[in-house]
């Protein structure tokens, strides 16, 4: 007869696995993606997403330019079929005298200086948008935000002597990220434009 206490004994491996899983779930649950609709475009916000940390931050503080590539993707309800994509390039630098950040958008060249780390992150996400034109108001959809620190080698592969390599560009977001480059993927949904029109942002999360 096996004593009751022995049957309930949890191994050290199980404790370790449970600890790791719990911390992972906490990390994933901590980042929310909020979606807003202005009548034409969908905008995102993620106050808990801090991408100006770690190696990218170190590189910025060393005076280097760091580029983040972002992509918003509208997905059908099945979360597989792509309806639309919108990409943006965010170029950041850090003023070694003023200790403030500068961000420049790739689409229209707009830039803003004198930002703190938190305001720079918020400004980047505020300026990401994807058109909702042609979407049925009551049809459920998902919105995915992908953010990745660009590898200079990726950039040089995309823009080469022979022009822009579209194949390479698609590969950047298709392939798995290099482990030493920061990257984030956040999903929000299922959403409906009809609900978003009501005014309140709708949020969902995915770490």
């Amino acid at each position, binding site marked *: 007869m096996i004593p009751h206490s022995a049957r309930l004994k949890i191994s050290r491996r199980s404790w370790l696995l449970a600890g790791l899983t719990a911390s992972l779930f906490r990390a994933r649950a901590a980042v929310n993606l909020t979606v807003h609709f202005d009548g034409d475009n969908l905008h995102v916000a993620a106050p808990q997403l801090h991408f100006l940390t770690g190696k990218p931050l170190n590189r910025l503080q060393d005076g*280097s330019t760091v580029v983040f590539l972002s*992509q918003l993707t509208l997905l059908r309800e099945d979360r597989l079929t792509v309806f639309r*994509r919108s990409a943006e390039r965010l*170029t950041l630098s850090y003023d070694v005298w003023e200790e403030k*950040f500068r961000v420049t958008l790739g689409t229209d060249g707009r830039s803003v200086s004198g930002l703190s780390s938190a305001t720079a992150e918020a400004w980047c996400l505020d300026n990401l948008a994807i058109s909702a034109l042609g979407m049925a108001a009551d049809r459920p959809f998902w919105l995915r935000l992908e953010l990745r620190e660009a590898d200079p080698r990726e950039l040089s592969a995309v823009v080469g002597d022979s022009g822009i390599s579209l194949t390479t560009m698609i590969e950047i977001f298709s392939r798995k990220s290099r482990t030493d480059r920061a990257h984030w993927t956040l999903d929000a949904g299922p959403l409906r434009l009809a609900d978003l029109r009501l005014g309140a942002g709708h949020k969902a999360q995915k770490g």
Partner: protein
Amino acid sequence: MRLVWLACLGFGGLLAAAPQDPELNVNSRYLVETVIVAGDGWSTDLASEPNEKISVGLRRQILALIGTKLNPNLLDDLAARLRKEFQARAVSHRLKRGDQPDSVRVVFEIKVPPTRFDVSVPKFLYNAKQGWSGAVEGTGAIERNSFTLGLVSDQDELVERYTGLRARYENTRLGTDRVRVRFQFEDYHDQWNGATRNQLLLGGGPADLTSGVYRTRQNFEPVVSFVIAKPLTLSVGTSFERFEDQFPAAKTEAANALLATLRYQWQLEDSDTRQDVDAGYSLHAATRILKSDFVYLRQQWTLHYTLRRGKHTVTDGVQFGFLSGHAPLFERYVAGDSTQLRGWNKYEIDPLGGNRIVTNSVDYRYGILDLFYDTGAVWDSGQPSIARHSVGAGFRQGPFFLAVAFPVREHRPDPIFMVGMNY
């Protein structure tokens, strides 16, 4: 799908628009006050300290940054050049506030891999008269210590063809950057040209001044080098060489010598021209004190001067050699190889080599085209010296060389074809 492609095109435009624009970096409005380059245990402020570790051309490019507005793209280019020049694992750069307002200091940090392995071909040559010569080496390095193991078969350098292995340990920083130490061991099997054997069998003259042919040869050579001043290096050491004679009876003899080499390397570069001078003096003194069976004094002076201007390159190499006493065959001077008196067959000039040598080689290069003129003489003391000349042409690209050389003499020219690398 069409939308995806459109999105990609738009995204491509974004990528193409920005990456090379230095204005994207907010620090590009600051002046560069100075540039600091830091490596493994050393650091130099290029604005105030000359640094010989960095080549003149690269140093000039780095110095050009000082006093100008910061261009981050230039920093990436210079980091790549430093990485190549130092064979570094990585070169990073960072900015620090300057002493003056609105100025920055640029710091390049060179990271050398703690361990590395490299396979190289120090020499590869085909000479129509002498056949193939070549060497391959594998080098493993841990920080400042390197271990090399190589295989070699060479009939170009000496009277003999020596085939075997060499092993070497080197420490390039013995307490200080100015002291290096090297231990080399060589183990060769030797083969001889018929002309050399016949000359020795005849006896008399130069045959009495040297050893007989030997079938094997081993050498152990510890050497310490001191960097006296940056362009001037003194190396001292010993060579414990022993070889097994074939005739008249198998016996082992030793040629143990003190070694000393003084070398001066200097480079001057301006916007149009670059000049390199490499001068050296070497001394081998074999003495009974080291239990040597041979007693001799071998001295050699060399001078190489190179002038480069655009695609034009002129090189002049001069060599004088003086050998006194009774020296084994591997110490005797040879010409008519792939570097001196090219076009002549060394066994035709003197199958045993000589104890005196004077040579001069002039090369003119335009792009990859190479024209050369060699002159010189190898002889033995007490014998008349005969000056010989040769001309040739070829192509040289990097370490690769292909040439045809003609001896200048009265009867029919007998050209020698040479092809190879690093010789």
